[in-house]
């Protein structure tokens, strides 16, 4: 009969908890990047900018159709091999081993976040009825004003829950960065478990901390959503 070592479990929950700010950063920075770039790309698609819109569409479809772990590994290996080969050719002494893996991880996660954010923002912007834009055009508003005063305020209540889900998705994705050598909560806790073979307790600890993180984000999004709805004069 397997007995859970609750002392070890609690200690690992604490270890994982102390790494939470790092994980939150790994989730938030790419999401914010994705939000900014995704907004531009969403507008590129909605305004039907020639050529560019096909490129954006291809990128979104490609990213959404591939497992995150493979993208992490591909970008990691492509960069490591490519960078070293290039540096060698140029005769420079810089090597990829000196670049912290956290940077790669953030780069890949940002690349992924952008695709998901583009789709989320596009969905939210398209939820505003066309008549609203047409009415704004009819009274002579500029494109910029139409977005700022008519479309975005109405799209926001729709966007927040979708973006919140995307953020939770990104937070869950951070659990994979351990595979390319980033020392996050998963790595830390696993190293501690290596000594005692108490992997079950270690992963339960990680699970509990992620659970708390995602429920926390969910509650935050709910509060934000409530305040936006009130300001929009809705229910």
């Amino acid at each position, binding site marked *: *009969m*397997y007995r859970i070592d609750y002392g070890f479990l609690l200690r690992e929950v604490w270890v994982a908890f102390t790494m939470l700010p790092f994980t939150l950063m790994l989730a938030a920075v790419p999401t914010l990047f994705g939000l900014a770039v995704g907004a531009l790309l969403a507008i590129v698609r909605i305004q039907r900018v020639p050529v560019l819109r096909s490129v954006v569409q291809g990128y979104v*479809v*490609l990213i*959404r*159709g*591939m*497992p*995150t*772990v*493979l*993208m992490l*590994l*591909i970008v990691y*290996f*492509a960069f490591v*091999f*490519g960078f070293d*080969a*290039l540096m*060698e*050719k140029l005769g420079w002494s810089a090597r990829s081993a000196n670049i912290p893996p956290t940077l790669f991880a953030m780069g890949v996660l940002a690349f992924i976040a952008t695709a998901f954010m583009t789709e989320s923002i596009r969905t939210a912007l398209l939820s505003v009825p066309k008549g609203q834009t047409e009415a704004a055009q009819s009274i002579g508003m500029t494109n910029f004003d139409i977005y700022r005063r008519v479309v975005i305020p109405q799209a926001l209540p729709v966007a927040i829950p979708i973006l919140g889900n995307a953020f*939770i998705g990104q937070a*869950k*994705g*951070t*659990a*994979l960065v351990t*595979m390319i050598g980033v020392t996050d909560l*998963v790595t830390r806790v696993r190293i501690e478990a290596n000594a005692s073979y108490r*992997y*079950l307790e270690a*992963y*339960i600890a*990680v*699970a509990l901390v*992620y*659970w708390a*993180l*995602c*429920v926390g984000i*969910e509650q935050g999004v709910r509060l934000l959503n409530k305040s936006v709805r009130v300001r929009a004069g809705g229910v």
Partner: protein
Amino acid sequence: MSIDYFSVGRVVEYLPAMLRKLPVTLAVAFSSTALGLVLATLIAAALLFRVPALYQVIKVFISFSRAIPINIQLFVYYYGLPALLAPYLLPLGLNPSRANPIYFVVATYAISSSAFMAVMLSASISGVDPGQSEAALSIGMTGGQMFRRVIGPQAFQIALPEMGNVIVTNLKNTSLAFTVGVIDMVGATRAIATRTHHALEGYVGNALVYFVICLLLEKAFGLLERRYRLRKG
């Protein structure tokens, strides 16, 4: 020294060995979705009928399954299920610690996706206009008839897009099975990488295979959705 870190030739060269393991990947994805759907039906029933006590337990289970990264859930079940089941299975001469890890992967994805599917099922059943069930009852249908002929078909149409998402997610998640030692497509790729020291081409080929299957699944579900589109008056 020449730059030889990526060659399309090697992507093509490694593909056959990878594709030989594609059935493992597909088997994991589809069996876990099917098992998950069965589990989800039971869970959704408990949710809809608000079975006391069970309802609260299920709420916690759903929150847990949706919030925790799938690779962490995989490890929790991989180490947890043998510990939990050993007292029952050892007397039968079965040692769960020595079982093929693929069973734990299927179990994890089935359990985890059942949470998503239970929400999907209960939401789509309660999403059917209440006037529909009232109308069905008013013409004297029994509860079973009402569900089979009126509620079920409409809920099916509502659930279909989300069902597609769940299958695609389960398929993409199979790429993590290698972390507990399953030799699927990614496992085969890693073996090639160790042997040849060319990791990149294998992963690129792998990602392309996943991409094509995801695309096909999305197309298939798009067709199904069009076929069963809700006809609104």
